[in-house]
């Protein structure tokens, strides 16, 4: 499973729409990594992000994607090993869940159109 890293100056910049957009673009899961709570350079950016991640989890649950596909972690910029550990943990979690319903639907459609091409 591949991961892509999107850098932002602060998790406070992350809107619910940005997270949902990632799923539209084909992400099977999105992890948000912010500074430790109480350590935000912009005072409460990571606290806002936590609330937004929670709301997106709620939306994903409502539409049958599962709330586990989005998750927030907090660590300090110096904790490379923790970053690797969290990433590994989240990738395992998403792999267990499998492709998101939208990717499944797209995969099915691709298969159908390939079959159509094969049939012509």
């Amino acid at each position: 499973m591949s991961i892509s890293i999107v850098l932002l100056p602060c998790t406070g910049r992350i809107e619910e729409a940005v997270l949902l957009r990632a799923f539209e673009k084909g992400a099977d899961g999105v992890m948000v990594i912010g500074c430790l709570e109480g350590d935000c350079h912009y005072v409460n950016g990571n606290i806002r992000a936590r609330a937004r991640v929670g709301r997106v989890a709620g939306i994903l649950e409502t539409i049958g994607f599962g709330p586990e596909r989005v998750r927030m972690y907090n660590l300090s910029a110096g904790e490379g090993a923790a970053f690797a550990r969290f990433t590994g943990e989240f990738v395992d979690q998403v792999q267990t869940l499998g492709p998101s319903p939208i990717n499944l639907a797209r995969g099915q459609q691709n298969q159908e159109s390939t079959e159509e091409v094969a049939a012509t």
Partner: protein
Amino acid sequence: MITGTPKPIEEILEMIEPYEKIIVAGCFGCVTVCRVGGEKEVQVLASTLRLAREAGGRPLEIREVCLERQCDPEYLDPMRPYVEDYQAVLSIACGAGIQFMAEKFARTPLLPGINTGFLGVTERQGEWAERCQGCGDCVLHLTGGICPVTRCAKSLFHGPCGGSVGGICEVSRDVPCGWQLIIDRLKALDQLENYGKLKPYKGWSSARDGGPRRIIREDMI
């Protein structure tokens, strides 16, 4: 401001079931302030609907727009050139905005994406409370700035009913008795004599009881 709450996604999905190409329209007025129908909510709702529909095998095309206001004709006009390219408009403005759009775009079905609430205030982030019912004949100068029409569950005009106990309304433990609030405030303002100045009866013809209302300001026409 006019407040509202989002409709459940399931209900919206059912509403848009017949369509493949819709507009999701927000409003930069009240519904932006109470975080139910502004630009951000348009983006979130549109993404949510696209995800749900595509996952179900029926992708949905959405044009996302947010108008300055949906209750003023000049802000609806810019939609005119493209509105009929879409099968429906899902509006997350208040009921007034949605209806005005329906009037202006006669051939396009309009769908409500929120449940419009009441004229209220933000008591704290995420909590709104009703303050005015637009009765058309304001008496706040006599009632210490507290509305008897709204804050009294029975809209009484001559003091509390027998259901007021310890300053709490019989309707719910969470509702303070409007009349207790009024009397306490009049006392604090040393204006208790205002209580006696309330009209013997209130004319309700300027309120909703007189049917749909209209304001005509000759000086502005």
